């Protein structure tokens, strides 16, 4: 055996636990779910092949289309707002503030709080009678709505709640901001750029890799949103917060339709891949990596 082959086998032996885990716990279930998506499968009896029936039925399922609409709404509003909020907070935390370290920690705390606890907390905040939010609005003479009880306000409520969880992106933006060379600001000032122009022409271009990362991870997470709606609204009122994965879960584990749920999962997977590819393709035009010409 050649030394190269030996080295390769040694390497293979050391990474074999990961490879086997990857194959057994990721690739195998993934392929199995692809197969299930072409079957009628209730988890209790053997799957029965039905071809594309599940995919065709999805196009006629009004609840599915409703879930798609709800999810797109959540993605379109929560992701850009989340990135913007994270950037603004990081920008402020990057200034020479007193208690800066403490403030950074405070903004990160919600990330380490379990989502179930966060959901309960926000149910209280959104309480229309004695919740914090409506009480604050009342101070300025506004009668707050029934945040979670109204089909009009339920989705915006969950978008607002999502902003509470931007701590992770804030950290990434902070790191990116601290990486912006001081010399660029000095050069901009010499050229007469005011603060706004410095942010627009120096800061933002320099943190575009962080923006891309936050957008990407935010999009993937938003497409899969589940726990907040599951705990806070159960998908209601009148299915206004029944998101994609919530409906998928119900079909798979409540209504004995795992085949149908698998087809939903694969469509979601495809959608996420498409969005990710589009984002990457367009990133060449707007993301600046240091050192590029």
């Amino acid at each position, binding site marked *: 055996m050649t030394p190269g082959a030996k080295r390769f086998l*040694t390497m293979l032996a050391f990474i074999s636990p990961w490879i086997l885990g990857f194959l057994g716990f990721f690739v195998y279930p993934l392929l199995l779910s692809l197969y299930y998506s072409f079957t*009628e499968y*209730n988890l*209790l*009896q053997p799957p029965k092949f039905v071809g594309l029936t599940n995919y065709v039925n999805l196009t006629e399922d009004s609840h599915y289309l409703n879930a798609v609409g709800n999810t797109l709404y959540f993605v379109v509003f929560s992701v850009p707002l989340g990135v913007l909020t994270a950037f603004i907070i990081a920008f402020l935390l990057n200034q020479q503030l007193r208690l800066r370290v403490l403030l950074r920690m405070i903004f990160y705390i919600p990330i380490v709080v379990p989502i179930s606890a966060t959901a309960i907390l926000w149910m209280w905040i959104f309480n229309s009678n004695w919740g914090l939010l409506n009480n604050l609005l009342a101070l300025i003479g506004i009668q707050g709505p029934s945040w979670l*009880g109204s089909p009009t306000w339920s989705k915006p409520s969950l978008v607002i709640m999502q902003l509470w969880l931007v701590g992770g992106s804030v950290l990434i933006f902070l790191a990116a901001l601290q990486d912006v060379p001081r010399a660029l600001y000095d050069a901009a000032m010499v050229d007469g750029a005011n603060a706004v122009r410095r942010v627009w022409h120096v800061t933002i271009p320099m943190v575009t890799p962080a923006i891309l990362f936050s957008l990407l991870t935010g999009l993937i997470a938003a497409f899969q949103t589940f726990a907040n709606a599951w705990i806070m609204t159960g998908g209601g009122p*009148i299915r206004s917060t029944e998101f994609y994965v919530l409906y998928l879960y119900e079909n798979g584990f409540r209504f004995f339709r795992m085949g149908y749920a698998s087809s939903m999962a694969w469509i979601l997977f495809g959608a996420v891949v498409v969005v990710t590819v589009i984002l990457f393709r367009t990133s060449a035009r707007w993301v600046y990596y240091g050192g590029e010409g």
Partner: protein
Amino acid sequence: MRTQEQRLSRRTFLKVTGMGVTIAAAAACAPAAAPQAGDDETVSGQPAAEQIDLDYWYIWGGEGQVAGCDLFTEHNPHITMHPLTAGGVILDKTLAAFAAGDPPDLVDLILCAPLAGRGALIAVDDYIESSSVVDLENYQSAHLEAVNWAGERWGLPANEGLGWLGLARNRNLVQEAGLDEDALPTDFDELHAWAGALEEIDDDGNVQVLGMDIRGILTYPDCWSVVMGKRYFDGETFEYNFDSDEFAEALQISKSFYDRVGAEKIAEFKAAQEGQPIPSPSAAGKVGLFTGGSWTPGSLALNAREDLEFGFSFVPDGAGEGKSPFFAGTHTAMILNGSENVDAAWQFLEFTSTDEYNRRVYDVSGFIMGTKSFIESLDMSSLYPGLDFYTSGLSEGTRVWGIASDPNWYLAWDEFLALEEEVGFGTTDPGEGLQILQEKLTTELAKVLDA
């Protein structure tokens, strides 16, 4: 020489590691055979001394169930029970365990049909017939409906079961409004009149006191079935009846209560009540009439303001026949196909029918099983005010129905509940919505019957 030893040692290490990991991973990844329909082998003739372990999953009542299991083991020292409170996700958990080839021996769900219809349960008719412990006459006949599917029995009512539908009234509000408690509403027009007298709306149109919370009747699809005198599912002909005039009328009745003050206003009012379903402790004093099950009197006695009093009566008959509709819900224990100790599992199931077991569960967690002998053994006057309605209702009700033996019960429940809300908000036409629901459930039923 030393180098050679090191080389050998490393090679051996790599070989052993590689092989070990491969074998372990292959063993872990090998799919355990999921039990199939009809795979109901029993382990008869086991030596009595053989130690047997039984997994038993149930919805609620942790400590009471554990105590009941311990009592069973006291009588059967060779059987060790492993009880587990699975809560609201018990079905999800059971399905996943079954698919993984490792189901519990016994589960306690609302009804048997969804699992029985899909071949996941052991039929127990033969066991019942040969049992000297189980007396079917001792069960409420309506409770036994929950164990049926396709002409066979697949479990026994267990742990909790009285009545799950009664009209509760806040007596303080009723007396303030000058309503006569000796002339309770007997139809939905009268119920509207009562709701109107009880409700309080402020100048901005906000609900301060809700006259009648109609949504409680929708707790389960079976509730409207018994109120309207039309079963939503016929377990003998395997037909759904959601596309009937009775259910269209049920939705119209429901909507008429939404329309009294507006669906959004009711939603706002409810959302303000600590996010809990009515009657939550905070809402108990602000809702005139609502519906609830046998758990409601105790919940109100423990959580509502002390000065409040509540009365309970039958929900009006929507069929106009002047009957007293009563929905008798229960929990149902069943043996899963794939259990390796079916006989022992049956022994436990059998034991749940005894007063001794039910007394232990009741003493520890307060769960009341609706067997006739056990109810008779309770001193109802010493229990929560109003609870006696839920026991006497079983015999005094003139239309007492149990849970439909519907294999798609969970889907029917979710979809009908959502439809009722959509109709209440005016976003869906009742007839159209019911037609879609009927078709959807019929399609799913065909899959069950085909399999």
